């Protein structure tokens, strides 16, 4: 059965002065809709490259990538960007909130390029901020928030366009244990509601809670 994501023989090389560096050496993987996957591996193993490749921010050197049946390599920059904006939400270790905008504006930034199809973006942004417990912080700027609050804003932003896939790059890496657990619980809750979640983590406890673990070693799937 074709999954949400099907990749086959995916390779990524970065040309360097001393010769090309092979970040991924033929990864084959299938992800079904609604899965909760942790990608683990040592630093420099290629797990981040894999994550951003799945997020269509990196173009593979060779191999095949199908997202929901679409050949991603054949899409133009505009088509790929729109598909990414609509179907994929990103959560980063360092949150990436823009300091010049308020909490609400940061969440709404996601609708700047891909407005949600059915709902009014502001109403949805308010609902999402209420859901992550920040409805009292709408007009605050990121500098006035704690790390945990910032990550919750970032999750609300990732959910604005109601994407099917959530990609999280070390989402608890900058958080203390308690806040990290809250964020993990939120991601698990979203997964239970039907979102496909793929995250990178160095945290064994967080990885252990994922239904499926993919270990990457030297640019290949280890187990």
């Amino acid at each position, binding site marked *: 059965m074709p999954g949400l994501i099907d990749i086959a023989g995916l390779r990524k090389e970065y040309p360097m002065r001393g010769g090309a560096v092979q970040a991924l050496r033929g990864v084959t993987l299938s992800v079904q809709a609604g899965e909760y996957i942790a990608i683990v591996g040592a630093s420099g193993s290629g797990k*981040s*490259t894999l994550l*951003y490749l799945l*997020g269509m*921010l*990196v173009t593979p050197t060779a191999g095949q990538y199908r997202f929901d049946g679409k050949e991603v390599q054949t899409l133009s*920059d*505009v088509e790929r*960007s*729109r598909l*990414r*904006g*609509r179907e994929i939400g*990103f959560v*980063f270790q*360092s949150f*990436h909130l*823009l*300091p*010049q*905008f308020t909490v*609400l*504006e940061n969440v*709404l*930034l*996601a*609708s*700047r*390029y*891909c*407005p949600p199809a059915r709902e009014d*973006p*502001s109403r949805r942004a308010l609902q999402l901020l209420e859901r992550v417990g920040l409805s009292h912080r709408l007009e605050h700027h990121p500098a006035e928030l704690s790390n945990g609050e910032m990550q919750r804003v970032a999750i609300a*932003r990732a959910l604005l*366009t109601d994407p099917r896939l959530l990609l999280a790059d070390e989402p608890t890496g900058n958080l203390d244990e308690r806040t990290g657990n809250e964020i993990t619980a939120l991601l698990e809750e979203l997964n239970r509601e039907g979102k496909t979640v793929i995250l990178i983590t160095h945290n064994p406890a967080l990885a252990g809670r994922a239904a499926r673990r993919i270990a990457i070693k030297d640019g290949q799937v280890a187990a």
Partner: protein
Amino acid sequence: MRPLGLWREAWRNLLLHRSRSALAILGIIFGVASVICMTSISEVARRDVTSRIERLGLRNVIVDSIKPQAVADEERRDTGASRIARYGVTRADLEVLKASLPQIETVLPIRILSQDLYAGLKKAEAAVAATTPDYPRVMEHAISRGRFLTAMDESRCLPVCVLGYETARALFPLEDPLDRFVKIGSLPFRVVGILSLKGQTGTGSALSNPDQTVFLPFSSSFARFGSLQIRVGQGSQEATQIEVHRTVLRVADRALLAPVAQATLNLMRKRHQAGDVEVSLPYALLEEHRRSERIFLWVMGSIAAISLLVGGIGIMNIMLANVAERRPEIGLRRALGATQGEVLRLFLGESILLCAVGGVLGLGAGIGLARAVGALAGWTVAFQPLTFPLGLAVAMLAGLLFGTLPARRAARLDPVLALRSE
């Protein structure tokens, strides 16, 4: 609340680094301000010169008597002996001109007398000019009150005069000058008219300000003051005989100007081999002035281009710094679905907006600066309306031009490297 549009978002991004943005647009502000300032001040000079030339009459050929080299040399030697210097256009020349060039509609002689003008004991700083009744028509100078000199004044050599506007006000600030008597030299003349305000015509000579002149009949000047004008110096007397200082030839049709001027020049060269006559065309002066104006415009355009270039390089510099600093933001926008084109437009929008703000401030500064310079120098400042939209458009064009490189660099950033560059 809607997501911010491109321009509002660009504005907010610029406000994030207020002082940096302000410094970046300084070059544009100064560039636009200097252009506005220069054009407005040169516009005044242009209008002034143009109107002075036009007041000389664009259908006229001007024949001036000039001091020949031989006379000037003799004056310089200054032997102390008394002498008579005779040169310039004579009454006989006028008759010859009338007889040989039928294209000339009117021959208007003007003779300057070195006499003082008084009303009672009050002396006026005015030139004394003798001319014929054709003066107002040929020089396009209207009468304000009373009448100008008439044919009868001329034929009977009557002691009447017409005052220039400023001279009338200077001599009779509180009374009506009409029918009052003024003294030219030691002789009384009755005021029969006052000319309207005209403004300077040409430059330099006693004839250049008709508003500070008293006019008397041409014939009266010879009948009452003789043909010699005597200046008494230390131990010597110097007499000059110039019958006509300036002759204005009115031509029926502007197309005939050049041929008439050439014919007059030929005729005068034949009759005045000492080189004491000069023929000029106000129309040609205007043409020449327009030519030099075009050169001036090129020079100004180059200065404006250089200052905007410098301003634009400043903008490029700041925008490159912005792109480098906002790499994670660029990565984020790409992750949120922004295309390369959308990232390009965002940064291009910011640099255009930055330059537009600089342009508007520059317009304001330019107007203020021009007014200040005008006030200090006592000039009236005239603004060419076209320079405002043009200045703004050029500033925005500089934003587009110099913002392209940074914006392209932003659009081509590898999103993953950009996200990790914190």
